């Protein structure tokens, strides 16, 4: 009994000493600020900052003096925290949110052919430029949903990507994976968007989509400040998004949506007033007004 206790204890002691010595000998010097920044970062390794993962970004901030404002997913709080650690001033930045500029799901938009193959938007796009008749519409195969590190994107039953404005951190992963550039980054405070990505002429759009922008100019007539029409596609001027209301109501194809009153049809994210509106003053940085 005693022999067992002594021998086991001895082995334990020897191992502990060896480990301790090894830890001293092979210790890697880390700037304490780097560890502190890593603490503050979300740890999602989303890559929004342009570095491969949070630790790489933390290292870049400390060693290369990279701007602390690159972590858009973390929002203003994170930026300020990093700035505090580094002892520099935080620059104000408007938080962004990704928007799928399409409402043409499989019921509302025509298909060119039936796609059978790998369920991946980039693969489908390679087959005769995608199965959708619309050259800019959401293919609905969910590549963005799989790319989103925050679970902010869902596919509706009819095959349309919808991004939850609450969960989206603005990391742009979905933007980079979408083969058709359907997803755009927009200021978080702007809730009104033209949900169409087709630059075809109105008559052409009408043929393949019930909810596409036909460039009829009605939105611009009703809210001249808030809209521009470029290359047969209306766009909200986000500096004046607060004046966009009249255009939403008058749009003949309902392709302009104010997310305060709900997500596109089929989405489980629901409609009505969004909590983000109530929280807006907290995260807003003054540019919203």
């Amino acid at each position: 009994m005693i022999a067992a206790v002594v021998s086991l204890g001895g082995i334990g002691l020897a191992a502990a000493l060896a480990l301790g010595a090894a830890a001293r000998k092979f210790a890697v010097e880390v700037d304490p600020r780097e560890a502190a920044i890593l603490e503050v970062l979300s740890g999602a390794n989303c890559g929004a900052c342009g570095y491969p993962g949070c630790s790489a970004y933390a290292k870049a901030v400390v060693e290369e003096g990279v701007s602390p404002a690159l972590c858009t997913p973390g929002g203003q709080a994170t930026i300020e925290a990093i700035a505090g650690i580094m002892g520099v001033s935080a620059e104000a930045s408007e938080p962004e949110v990704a928007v799928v500029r399409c409402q043409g799901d499989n019921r509302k938009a025509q298909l060119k052919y039936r796609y059978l193959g790998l369920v991946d938007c980039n693969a489908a796009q390679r087959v005769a430029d995608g199965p959708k008749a619309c050259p800019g519409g959401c293919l609905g195969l969910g590549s963005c949903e799989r790319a989103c590190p925050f679970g902010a994107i869902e596919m509706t039953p009819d095959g349309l990507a919808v991004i939850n404005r609450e969960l989206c951190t603005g990391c742009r992963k979905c933007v980079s994976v979408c083969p058709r550039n359907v997803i755009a980054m927009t200021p978080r405070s702007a809730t009104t968007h033209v949900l169409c990505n087709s630059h075809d002429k109105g008559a052409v759009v009408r043929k393949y989509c019930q909810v596409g922008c036909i460039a009829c100019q009605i939105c611009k007539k009703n809210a001249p400040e808030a809209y521009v029409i470029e290359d047969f596609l209306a766009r909200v001027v986000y500096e004046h998004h607060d004046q966009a209301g009249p255009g939403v109501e008058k749009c003949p194809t309902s392709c302009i949506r104010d997310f305060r009153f709900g997500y596109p049809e089929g989405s489980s994210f629901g409609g009505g007033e969004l909590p983000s509106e109530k929280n807006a003053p907290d995260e807003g940085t003054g540019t919203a007004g």
Partner: protein
Amino acid sequence: MRLKTFSGGLHPPDSKEFSAGCPIEDCPLPEELVVPLSQHIGAPAKPVVQVGDRVLRGQVIGESGGFVSVPVHAPTSGEVVAVEPRLHPSGRELPAVVIRVDGEDSAAEPMSALDPATAEPDALKDRIREAGIVGMGGATFPTHVKLSPPPEKPIDTLILNGVECEPFLTADHRLMLEEGEKILDGIAVLQRILGVEKTYLGIEANKPDAIDQMSALCSGRNIEVVPLEVKYPQGAEKQLICAITGREVPSGGLPMDVGVVVQNVGTCAAIADAVLRGLPLVERIATVSGDAVVQPKNLRIRVGMSLAHLVEICGGTRVEPAKIIMGGPMMGMAQLSLDVPATRGTSGLLLFSEEKVVRRPEGPCIRCARCVQACPARLLPTTIAAYTRLDMMDEAEQLGALDCIECGCCSYICPAALPLVQTIRHAKAAIMARRRKG
């Protein structure tokens, strides 16, 4: 004697009986031809005609846009009514010359005839390029490029591809039966250009009449007819070389790396026309088949004829086609509609009814290894596909995704109906895109 072949592959029902006995028929001219300027791999041709121009058969309407490119010729006489993007077999809208056919079919002055026995190889190669000749097995790679290997890669063997391993297609089969002499004329030109010691003509054993016919014609001409085992993809270039010569084209390499040039028999016939008669490539033989077609046929078609016209000549459709395929059922391209022009690479047009188009839901991979056994490139299709789905392209590349010849054996054999070849094609495209980026 055991027939020569390669490892892997499979035996889909060859379904050639529908059209194998039909002699080649001349397809009447339609009212309008849509001639795409992109009918080959490489830079598209540049249009040299304008709306309102009158063109004659054989007249150049598009100039070649570089070394890896060939000119495009008017398939018949008529008036140019448009030069605009039109739906192309690739599914995209690409520039095309639209010709309203006048019905006279008057020919432009043919190019001077050359004698393959005396002409310089370079002159013959130029003629082949000027005549717009491309690989007519379906790949449409400009033939003159294939015939111009760099001096450090000596060519000692020429292989003629009369395998036609794709099910349903019988165009090459009929060509060998009916126009064997023309093929031999073309072979003579190729032998002259390449100066090869050995010439083989590979034919699958399911075409005994063609083997007999060509053997009789080839005797005494230093051309060996090689009957090959009936197995898909016997006609794939690298597999054919391996079957006949035992040489394996290195991974990432070309047939010229093992001293071989492979040409399709249809290309040979076109070369004969171009060199001996000065005629550019504006027509070819295509098989129209499939269960939705009333009367399957082998047609001599002009480039630019719409697929709808070909179907009409074959008695129209029995039922609404659920799938339209240009080329063979294994590697051909599914078409969006019949309002697409035939090109130099249109070896076949297949229309299938809903009941023939088997659509099964995808199941889980149970690692049954059928794809591994069938893969003629000896890859692990299911593993590459699994990595691709996870976007792990480094691993997919390491497993040899780029060595995939896209024959489709894996997707055909998969009991879980997984889109394996489609997934590997996606991986290949993604890997190549990343390489280009740097």
